[in-house]
Structures are given as structure tokens and as C-alpha cells.
């Protein structure tokens, strides 16, 4: 057994190499640090370029929108301004209620369908699952206005072909919920598949090895383990849906009164932005900024809330 260097022996190739590695590493260190700093700088610039438009949008929203927020804004319905009082334009309570009802009903059917389908995608290896996955991917990329046309045909005017007869129920909140819900399903599906696949296989197998059926393992082990991810998936899909305009553009009827009944014509916030912004009245056009800001704040709260809740759930478990 040899130990280290012994005086008088020829140079040890290992020690020579150790010195060489240290020498080169030290010599190239400055250059490597410089390159590293340059790259970090580039990352920073890219980040800045990406953030500038974002903050510009937020800034103009707040600057032009926040002064529209008043008690009237939240509690009254829209009215056309008169010449005498050009700023008397009422509020958007119809749109707030409309968004609440339409998106609420959409979430009610889209969340369970989306999660169950996501579970199927995560757990099944069948051909049908991959077909479903591809379909969901295509659907998330679909121009959302197509969903509006679909809802218009199916719900508003009704369907009468191939012996299938669906009576149309006219312009209604439910038609909007249908379009928004169909928009949400593939998003929830894909995101919950990712969350469910994140559950380590060993945990899945631990359940199966105890004699549990796959459904039981999914319900009692996998879904609870993936819960933070599932909640994030659902809320992100929801906040995306809240801002969608195209699917509801011509199916909800754009009512100007507060309607809680989803079978009636309704209003919604994104649609209200569109209508106010294209109105001939200056004050209504300006008010659109206030509605837009409200929409952004809602989306922000849902997003932040989902993240905080998921983080809290994660912490609770440790």
C-alpha cells in the first residue's frame, strides 16, 4: 500500500494531474465567472423586456381605471349619459352578477369532468387515452370564438339534425356557461393530468400492493396527494375563463339589467368592456378601463389565492 508522496521517488502522475487541474481551473475561473455573469445579465435583460409591456399594461389600467371604482360602479346598472350629465353612466352590477353566474355554472360542470378526465389520462395507457389527450391539446389551441359559434348553434337556436332534436333556449346565461365550461375542460384536464402524474409511482404501487383497487387508490391516495396541484389547475383554468370574451360574445344576450336566472339574457364583465369601449359615448369608453381593471384584479386574486392555498396545503402536510 502506498501513501501520498514519498521523498526521492519519481513524480506521482496523480499529484501532477491534481496540480494541473487546479492550475487550469484557477486560470479559467475568471473567464468562466465572466461568461456566467454575462449570461445572467442576458437573462435579466430578457426578463426586463418581458416585464415592461406587462407593467405598462398594469400601469395604464390602474391610472385610467381606478377612479371609476365607486359605489355606483359596483351597485348600479349601465345607463346612457345625457348631455347635461355626461358622466352619469350608472354601474356594471349586471356584468358582475352575470360573470359570477355564468362562470360559476361553467365551473360547476367543467371541474368534475376535467379532473375525472385528467385522472383517466394520468392512469390509463389505452389508445383511447392518447386520443383523448391529443383532442384536449387541440382543443386548448382552438380559437375560442369557435366555442361561441358552437354554443350559439347548440343552445341558443337549438339542434335539429340526424333525428336529434334539442330545443333552443335563446340568448341566455346558460349558453355562455356552456361555451366557457367547454373552454375550461381541456385546460383542467391537461393541468390535472400533470399534477396527478407527479405523484410518485412508488406511492401508487404501495396502495395497489395492499390489495386496493385502482379506483380506491386513485380516490384515497393519488387525488389527495396531488390536491395542491389540482387546486392550482382548477383555479388557473377558472381565471383564464373569467376573462374570455369571444365564446360569450353573441350567446348571452348582453342584458342591461341584473339577472340571476341563467335561462334569461345576461351580461358579463369581458362583454361589458367590449360594449363600453365601442360605445359612442366618451365616458362609457373611458369606463371600460375601470371594468378591465376589475377583471384583472379578480384574475390576480384567483391566481395568487390558488398559489397561496396550494403552498399552505403543502406546508400543512409536513
Amino acid at each position: 500500500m502506498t501513501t501520498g508522496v514519498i521523498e526521492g521517488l519519481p513524480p506521482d502522475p496523480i499529484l501532477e494531474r491534481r496540480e494541473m487541474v487546479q492550475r487550469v481551473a484557477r486560470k479559467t475561473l475568471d473567464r468562466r465567472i465572466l461568461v456566467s455573469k454575462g449570461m445572467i445579465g442576458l437573462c435579466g435583460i430578457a426578463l426586463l423586456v418581458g416585464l415592461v409591456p406587462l407593467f405598462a399594461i398594469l400601469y395604464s389600467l390602474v391610472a385610467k381605471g381606478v377612479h371609476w371604482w365607486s359605489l355606483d360602479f359596483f351597485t348600479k346598472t349601465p345607463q346612457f349619459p345625457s348631455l347635461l350629465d355626461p358622466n352619469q353612466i350608472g354601474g356594471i352590477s349586471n356584468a358582475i352578477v352575470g360573470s359570477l353566474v355564468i362562470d360559476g355554472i361553467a365551473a360547476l360542470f367543467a371541474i368534475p369532468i376535467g379532473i375525472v378526465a385528467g385522472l383517466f389520462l394520468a392512469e390509463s395507457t389505452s389508445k383511447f387515452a392518447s386520443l383523448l389527450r391529443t383532442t384536449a391539446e387541440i382543443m386548448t389551441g382552438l380559437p375560442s370564438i369557435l366555442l361561441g359559434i358552437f354554443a350559439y348553434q347548440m343552445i341558443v337556436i337549438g339542434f335539429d339534425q340526424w333525428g336529434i332534436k334539442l330545443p333552443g333556449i335563446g340568448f341566455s346565461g346558460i349558453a355562455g356557461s356552456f361555451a366557457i365550461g367547454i373552454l375550461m375542460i381541456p385546460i383542467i384536464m391537461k393541468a390535472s393530468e400533470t399534477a396527478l402524474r407527479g405523484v410518485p409511482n412508488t406511492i401508487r404501487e404501495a396502495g395497489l400492493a395492499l390489495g386496493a383497487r385502482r379506483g380506491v387508490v386513485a380516490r384515497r391516495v393519488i387525488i389527495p396527494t396531488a390536491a395542491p396541484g389540482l387546486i392550482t389547475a382548477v383555479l388557473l383554468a377558472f381565471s383564464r375563463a373569467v376573462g374570455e370574451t369571444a365564446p360569450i360574445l353573441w350567446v348571452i344576450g348582453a342584458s342591461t339589467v341584473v339577472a340571476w336566472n341563467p335561462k334569461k339574457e345576461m351580461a358579463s364583465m369581458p362583454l361589458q368592456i367590449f360594449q363600453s369601449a365601442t360605445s359612442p359615448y366618451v365616458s362609457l369608453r373611458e369606463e371600460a378601463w375601470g371594468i378591465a381593471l376589475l377583471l384583472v384584479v379578480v384574475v390576480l386574486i384567483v391566481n395568487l389565492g390558488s398559489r397561496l392555498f396550494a403552498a399552505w396545503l403543502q406546508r400543512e402536510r409536513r
Partner: protein
Amino acid sequence: MTERSTMVTVSAEVAGQEGDPRSGQISMRCDDVAVKFNGRTAIRDVNFDIPKNKVTALIGPSGSGKTTLLRAMNRLHDLTKGAVVSGSIRLGDTDIYKGGIPATLLRTRVGMVFQRPNPFPTMSIYDNVVSGLRFNGIRNRAVLQEAAESALIAAALWDSVSNRMKAHASTLSGGEQQRLCIARALAVEPEVLLMDEPTSSLDPISMRLIEELLDELKSRVTIIIVTHNMQQAARVSDLCAFFLMGNDRAGEQIEVAPTKKLFSEPDDPRTLDYIQGRFG
């Protein structure tokens, strides 16, 4: 136990060293080392010297902070948010935290082998072995070739891979992959090699091979090994440090002694309890 003790004695004699392995040169030195994560202490009161060209084993039950201490020795906690290492860990004369040495340079001097084999999945066997050298700016082909051969021979892998260096690392068995990772760590010629339970995911034959390797490797590099396997610690190490989790769930150093002494007549009754399997 007798057979193992004999083995330890024999290797001590071969190394020309009766008694304490700490009587020679010191490679690393821990003074009052503690590691905290977000204010919670994972290990504290670590005070011992790591003898050069010896194998030092860190043993103790789960949660006693062995791995945390090992990872502090090449500053792997630097990237963990909320991790604070206090006290001083020195490599030679350099304080590795306050001595102004860049972490990257430190890690060329203090290498590491992990619990599970982790060869780079996109690289060939050869590229894996020389990756550390390339990362540090060494491009000379002859140098790389020579270093790769030397490291692979040292890791007892040369014979089985010398004719398929371009093959993917994933074509190797688990044991071979782990020896590839040892070769990869050795190729930059570190002074110290940290090993975090390097055989715990391997079969007994691969484990035996790596254990035998350690005895030869220590002429080249100082080895610090974390192991859950006390027989392994008894078989491979010259010095043994024993850790336990205290009442506040923080790991503490209980006893550091030459392996033979720690396994035959430890000073602390808790060490005796542990090595006799009364807890942990």
C-alpha cells in the same frame, strides 16, 4: 465481530500505523460546525479532524445529520434557500466558507459520490468520466484520455468499459454506474472524496467491490463516507464519527474514535447501545 476487528487491525498494520489514524496529516478540520435550515438546527457541535489518506466513516441513525454535515463539506448547501453553515470547516489551511475560495474551485478539490448512481444521462461513458475536467476548462485530448483511463482503472471499471467508451452510461448496470460516478469524481483528482451512502442502492456484490475499492483509493484521496451499515463502517473505515439526534431533533456528534476502538470499547454508552443494535 472478531473477524471484522481483525480486518481493521490488519489494514492498520499495512498502513504502517498502529493506533490512532489521526496521528498523521490532517486533511479537513471541523470546528463548532452547525447547519441550520430556516432557523432549525439539523446538526451542531461538530468538532473533529479528518485524517489525510484515510477513510473516515460518519455513522448514526436517520436524522442524526450525517448527510447534512457531508454536504456542508463541499458547500452543496449554498444553493439551498434558508441553509446556514456556522463554525469553521477547513480544507488544509483554507476555511471553505470564509476563506474566499470560490465554491466551484472548492468542489474540484472536494468531490462527491451520491446515494444513487447519477451518471449524466445524455453522455457516453467517456464523456461522463471527463465531464468534470471539461467543466473546468481542460480541453487537451491526451490529458483527458489519460485522466479517464487512470480514473476508470482506479474505479475498477476499466476492464469492462475500455472497449466501449462511446456507449451510453445508461447501458451499464447499477453497480457499474456507481463506479462510473466514482471514476467521474476521481478524474479531477480531488484531495477529498465525499461519499453519501454510496452502496445503499446496490447489490451485495457491487457493494463488496466498492468497499474493496476504498482501501486502494485512499492512497490517492481522503475519503469521508456516510453509511447506515455499521458492518460497512467497521470494514472500510480507519476513523469513525458517531452522531445521534438530540431531544430537540438536531443531530449531535457523540463520539469520534479510531474505528477499532469505537467498535470494541467506545467511551460513550450511547455508542455502545447503537453498535449493539439497541436503538436506531
